[in-house]
């Protein structure tokens, strides 16, 4: 379970998060919608510990542990995974070596025995099929020369490999065509275990149609200003954000 209390964070001295309060229960899908620049991506990056952002106030706990004192890799190994809005290309590092290092680290943290080379490749093959990721992509360098859609699929593939407990999907639907969106969303649903929770950042109801969020929150100007169920997302789709701004007096 993820708990965020009065979180303030800034980048290059500019305050973006101005007191975020948010709780995500185990097994819950929590969608965050909001205007451009509201701080949705900042929130994701702060949760996973991106060093570009500075937390000035507040706290984040995950399963009772204070996340803010942990390094990004330690947070990841607790089972926190972020699907990047813009996945990074790493020329020269093969997907296989990259994934092997990541899976080894995760298994080690879980106290599980390391996979043999053969079992590891088998796992790669298995998980690749779920997101219909081409073989030739997994034999290349990380994200190098991948199209936008392939990069997003690759994120979900990595999620499949690492089996996180809490996933952040940061605009995973942006840049995807309808078919790719379906594959990514269905892949996510297939991979999800009953206690897997997720924070889904999106501008569109399309993705939420597949993911069926339990809770929808609206973020405006660095704060969560409204929380509701899936119907809230549909209202936003039809009416935009202005009525919410008026309602909360922004």
């Amino acid at each position: 379970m993820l708990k965020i209390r009065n979180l303030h964070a800034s980048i290059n001295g500019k305050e973006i998060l101005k007191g975020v309060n948010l709780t995500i229960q185990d097994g819950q899908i929590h969608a965050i919608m909001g205007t451009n620049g509201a701080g949705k991506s900042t929130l994701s990056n702060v949760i996973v510990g991106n060093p570009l952002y500075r937390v000035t106030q507040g706290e984040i706990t995950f399963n009772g542990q204070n996340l803010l004192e942990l390094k990004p890799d330690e947070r990841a190994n607790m089972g926190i995974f972020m699907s990047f809005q813009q996945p990074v290309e790493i020329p020269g590092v093969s997907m296989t070596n990259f994934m092997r290092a990541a899976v080894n680290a995760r298994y080690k943290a879980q106290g599980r025995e390391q996979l043999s080379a053969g079992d590891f490749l088998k796992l790669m093959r298995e998980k690749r099929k779920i997101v219909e990721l081409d073989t030739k992509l997994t034999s290349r360098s990380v994200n190098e020369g991948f199209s936008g859609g392939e990069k997003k699929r690759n994120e979900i593939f990595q999620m499949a490999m690492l089996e996180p407990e809490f996933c952040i999907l940061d605009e995973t639907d942006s840049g995807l065509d309808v078919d790719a969106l379906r594959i990514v969303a269905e892949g996510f649903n297939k991979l999800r275990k009953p206690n897997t929770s997720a924070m889904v950042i999106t501008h569109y109801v399309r993705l939420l149609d597949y993911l069926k969020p339990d809770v929808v929150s609206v973020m405006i100007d660095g704060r969560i200003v409204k929380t509701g169920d899936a119907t809230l997302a549909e209202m936003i789709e039809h009416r935009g954000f202005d009525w919410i701004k008026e309602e909360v007096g922004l």
Partner: protein
Amino acid sequence: MSGTKQYTDFYDNVRDTLFARSCDVMNAQRQAALDRFRWLGFPDRKSERYKYTDVGLDFEPDYGIALTALTDELPSHCYRIGSAPVDVTPYYNTIADHNDAVVCLNTMLSVDTLLVHIPRNTRPQHPIQISNILKGTNDTMVNRRLLIILDEGAQADIIITDRAVNDSRFLTNQVIEAFAGENSNLNIYEIEETHLLCTRYSNIYIHQDRNASVRHTSLSLFNGHTRNTCTVRLAGEGAEVSLNGCVIADKMQHVDNNTRIEHLVPHCTSNELYKYILDDSAVGAFAGIVYVSEGAQKTSSSMTNANLCATDSARMYTQPMLEIYADDVKCSHGSTVGQLGDDALFYMMQRGIGIDEARLLLKSAFITEVIETIPLQPLRDRLHFQVDKRLRGELSKCEGCKLCK
């Protein structure tokens, strides 16, 4: 001139031994080399080609100088120069730079020369590996000489490794002259895995005839002080050369690569790629010059030097240069010095990979580009493995070597 006296005195003392152990073709060059050496003196840092390496300092210690000749039992295509199957007079000491005191010193003091001769239109069944193993409990200087002759249409892969088995101080002064005949194909790989007390000077001269294709790859995986010079003369149309190198240096290690490619005729191609990873207080230098002479039209050349400085105290000097006297050429050169990408590091850490492992993967990826240029698959695999070990700090002695168990 400073520092040269101990060497000229030594020469005077051992002259008779040298002449007795060596052969006519080498002995014929000694006196002239001595005169040049005495006259030139060691280059100081004001001399353009030695701007980044203090030669006088490297040659100052009092080394015992090895005067051993090669054994007669050599693998096929390899000969002691005295028993050469061809007349080597038109080759020996003809393209080496007589204005370089370090080369003159080698000509003066080398006892023997290993000749690799590949006859017309042949290719040895296996790559030729030359292992230089520095061994001895006293501080030792070694003057090493290699002559490579590929006749028309010949092909060869030559792997040269430098290792040291004792922790004495060693100074190696190597000169290689390589002649690539028409349509020949020569690959030379040099791998240095020595230690912090080793100083290496290497001067390689390559002469290429029409349509000759040469690739020289230099890998400085572990060393003390290293200075490599590679000079290439593209003397026949259609000749092609690739000079690639990678350097991994940390602690107080020093690696200086200096290249000169001379496009003397039209329609030749040259490519250079040198990559350095410098950690701790390591110092790297790369100076490359591509010289395009008048009339060498349709020259195509590229030179890239990319460097990673992992700490604030690591230093890299880079100097890519072009000197062009023809007007219809395509030449590019560039260099970069940077750090590991923060974006990539964070991305990897978000996947649970620790910072040290992430850095290692990125460094290894950076060097991979150079290793991947090697066409010889088993060597490539081996080098990937060695580089990985080196970056993990595990390369302290040579793997699987009988001498250092």
